[in-house]
């Protein structure tokens, strides 16, 4: 999945450069990490100077922030949101709970490994990650975008069946349209 610099054409490099400059976050506070998003976006940390800001609808957003644990009921909505977003799209796993379940590893209602259900490009660890950590995570994402390695969305398209199988293991009543690319 790792691209080397040589496989990128000049158009790709320009396009990726443009993409990384404006990252719109999907406004969906899926977990408790959503509490550190307002400080990140407001006056002190002011993430907007780095091209990071909120977007209200999936179609306009580039980045899906999974802020912490995902209850199985939320997972269904997150998948729906993720599939509505337009490629190229990136996922940031925010907080320890997305990495291994964190504090809620033995909870019957939260998933433990986020990247089994949707592809994750960058993880930010901590409970809660500070706004500086959030910004650092976004900087890392920008690096990945520029080098053409933030390809989670492609991975999702290629391995859709595998992801779908995992998702349907948790979501009992799958009443959603089955997208296929």
């Amino acid at each position, binding site marked *: 999945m790792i691209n080397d610099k040589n496989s990128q054409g000049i158009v790709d490099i320009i396009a990726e450069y443009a993409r990384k400059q404006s990252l719109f976050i999907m*406004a*969906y506070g899926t977990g*408790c990490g959503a*509490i550190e998003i307002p*400080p990140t976006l*407001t006056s002190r940390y002011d993430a907007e100077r780095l091209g990071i800001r909120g977007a209200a609808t999936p179609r306009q957003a580039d980045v899906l922030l999974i802020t912490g644990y995902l209850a199985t009921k939320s997972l269904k909505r997150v998948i729906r949101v993720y599939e509505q977003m337009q490629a190229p799209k990136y996922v940031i796993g925010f907080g320890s709970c997305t990495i291994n379940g964190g*504090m809620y590893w033995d*909870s019957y*209602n939260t998933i433990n490994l986020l990247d089994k259900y949707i592809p994750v490009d960058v993880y930010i660890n901590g409970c809660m990650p500070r706004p500086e950590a959030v910004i650092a995570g976004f900087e890392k994402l920008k690096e990945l975008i520029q080098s053409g390695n933030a390809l989670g969305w492609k991975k999702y398209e290629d391995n859709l069946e595998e992801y779908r199988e995992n998702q349907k293991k948790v979501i009992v009543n799958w009443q959603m349209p089955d997208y296929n690319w």
Partner: protein
Amino acid sequence: MREETTTLYLGPQHPGITGNMMVKLQVRGDTVEKAETHIGYLHRGFEKLMERRNWLQSFTIVCRICVPEPDPNEENYARGVEEIEGREVPERAKYIRVMVLELARLASYMLWYGGQAGSAGLYTMGQWSVGDRNYILDLFEELTGGRVYHMYIWPGGVRRDLPEGFGDKVLKTMDYLEKRLDEYDRLLFDNSIFQKRAQGVGIIDPKKAIEWGVVGPPLRGCGIPSDVRKDDPYEVYDKLDFEVPNIDGNSDVWARALVRRQEMRESIKIVRQVIEKMPSGEYYNKIPNPLKWSIPKGDAYVKTESARGEFAYYMVSDGSDKPRRVHVKGPAYVHGITLLENLLVGENIADVSFIMNSLGTCPPEMER
């Protein structure tokens, strides 16, 4: 005129909703005819997890129950354990606890300022108040090591003493905030957009409010000065001088906003008194080895006044090293479900998130 109604799903993914929840609206035109709250998007099963963890391990997860204001949870849990066990708390620890609780209340209200104004389309307010909230979080960070989750108030006292010169820093921040509050007044309360949006919207019937289970600022907005800090004093609130706002208003969004505005000044007053009266001495009554620590059989009902209202814990111990049951009831459990469903009927769609913000609906404490 068309007769049929439309079903509108507000949330869980919606910029105006307060957290990860959903309100299913039946609308005719833009008037809400029926509202139904759907929750469960944040359910983690805290009460089950606490049954599996010992008394000290449970302490680390209780603060995660309510994200905007975690400290009342810690305080409730600690006080519940102390009540069942009969453990004394040093006087200094009680003062420190009150200081932390009031700072948390201020931080929570400042987030509310941003949310309430943002849902009326006034985004400058959020930039100011959420930015200034960082100064309080800085204090928390110095005191406890964490900005959001502190895990500071634990059974037997608090986790560490105040750092050197901390009192002065708190007072300095309070002076700054007091100055800023006047500016907030000019920005939000003098703003005719906010006045027109807030007055006469989301009216709770004052005669029914107590029976409906309304608590906290919405109840005080009805002109009923009910506050756990006065009615059932805990820690050292009975030794402090403060007033409960008595708003002779219309019990609408505006009245609730006035209550919160006044309470911020009262909180600043309390913090100043606490720093002044803080006794010296121990801050922690040491608990035994946490792995062997079991609590005698019994139960306790403890409650705290959080920024959104009465936060109550019903705790049961069966004599073992793990809690038998910790039942958490946050204020939003009533405000966000039965009260909201009834208040929204007849309101405009545009006011839905405005009313939700004024009630302080916070989904993580509804479903835990």
